[in-house]
């Protein structure tokens, strides 16, 4: 993939990732009734859903890339998708602080102390914050590849926190978090299957290498 193509695709991807929030803003100015009777609730779900969606797209990059060696270029969009997940998660948090709690510090502290779904959601956001802060290339260089990679695997923790957060807040019997749960489950399975398969391949390679040195 040429550099020019990468740039063009990045511009396209930025546009796609910003489309939901642009759409929301457009509707705020031109079609307010589409927010329904309780826009607070609507905007909360909207930003939360997009944060989770972006996380899933981001996590899907690696398994899809492994399908073929020719898909290696996909990795160049992973950071961007992760940062957009953080962007929508932050909008989600702002919605909670501003529209939901009305900047009422006492009620927010009460929420954090008493309510699991708030705690789990906040934990997920903090993980994303940490990953966003360490996302620049210089941070990777400073930390060293191995440590950086270890830290950035915690994106799975953030995704799990996001999905658990969703399940904790819906009423019993409501299954709207199910699609995200299934997708995340599939992505985790793909990850585990890959490392098992890869591990066996590596061991086999080592074994054959050992055999060849013995015979030599």
């Amino acid at each position: 993939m040429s550099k020019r193509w990468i740039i063009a695709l990045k511009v396209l991807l930025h546009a796609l990732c910003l489309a939901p929030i642009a759409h929301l803003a457009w509707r705020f100015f031109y079609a307010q009734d589409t927010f329904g009777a309780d826009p607070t609730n609507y905007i909360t779900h909207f930003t939360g859903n997009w944060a989770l969606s972006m996380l899933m797209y981001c996590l899907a990059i690696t398994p899809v890339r492994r399908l073929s060696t020719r898909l290696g270029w996909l990795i160049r969009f992973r950071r961007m998708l992760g940062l957009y997940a953080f962007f929508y998660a932050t909008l989600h948090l702002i919605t909670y602080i501003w529209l939901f709690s009305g900047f009422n510090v006492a009620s927010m502290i009460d929420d954090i102390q008493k309510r699991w779904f708030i705690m789990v959601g906040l934990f997920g956001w903090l993980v994303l914050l940490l990953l966003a802060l360490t996302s620049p290339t210089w941070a990777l260089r400073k930390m060293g590849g191995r440590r950086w990679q270890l830290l950035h695997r915690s994106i799975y923790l953030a995704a799990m926190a996001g999905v658990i957060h969703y399940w904790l807040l819906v009423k019993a019997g409501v299954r709207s978090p199910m699609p995200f749960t299934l997708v995340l489950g599939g992505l985790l399975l793909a990850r585990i299957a890959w490392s098992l398969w890869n591990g066996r391949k590596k061991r086999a390679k080592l074994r054959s290498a050992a055999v060849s040195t013995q015979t030599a």
Partner: protein
Amino acid sequence: MLIRKPNDIPSSEITPKKDYEEFQRSRRIGRRSFLAGAATLGAGALAAERMGLFSPTQEVHAATRLQTVPGKFTTTGETLTPYNKVTTYNNFYEFGTDKSDPARNAHTLITRPWTVSIEGLVKQPKTLDIDSLLKLRPIEERVYRHRCVEAWSMVIPWDGYPLSELINACDPLPSAKYVQFLSFLNNKEMPELPGGYDWPYSEGLRMDEAMNPLTLLTFGLYGEELPNQDGAPIRIVIPWKYGFKSGKSIVKIRFVAKQPRTLWNEIAPNEYGFYSNVNPAVDHPRWSQAHERRIGPGFLPKIIPTQPFNGYGDQVASMYNGMNLKKYF
């Protein structure tokens, strides 16, 4: 004869009532032979109606205006929630679990003919027709605050009369300690019916709660018959309790000796108590009940403090004297 534009003519006027009811009944049991039996005029009008030739809003306005008198216990000094918000933001899970679903899906509910059966511990069980129920007492307009357990609230002008009027007309036996309300259930008319719930929707009240003058047997809102998504053609409104206590589209009222099963209480007893009185001091396990988002004419709802018994303490608090409201939430 004065010739009017089609959308000025309410369908109830051009379709002979008998044919119309026959048509509704045939739809209910899934027969499709109504065209053969119906008079040409009636069938033509129905076909036009089904093809959407009459503007639906005009039809609704023309056909379903209620005669009301000003009611006692009306809440004054609060801004009403606009009609379009009351009718597009509903928890009526039989028509889908999203709050915008009922407004989209509930048109499949057939509300005529409709009967309510009075069962259980009464002198004489009976079945009442919706039109006779409508005529039983004068319909009062009552503005009530409506507080959902999800921490949003509205102010709604309901139309109905006290449930106690109907109960008195039913002669319950002294052994009747509770009243159970069962909602309509029909898979054909409720294609979005979600699994995992023990349908039909069931709610209940203690006898004194049911007899409280605030408890309203409700037929309309904003002076019009209830839209389907708001629980047509007949529902209960209990303004000092969380909204889910107020059963919609009631088909059975049963007088019982023991506390009846209620749907949300069965699903999550730690979250939804039998009483479910609005109480800012008792949090829902997953969120605070101290505040509510009041849905009004503005774009964003206002965050306001929630009042004990939703502000109806003067009328209802005495019923719970000596009860631990944290235990019996």
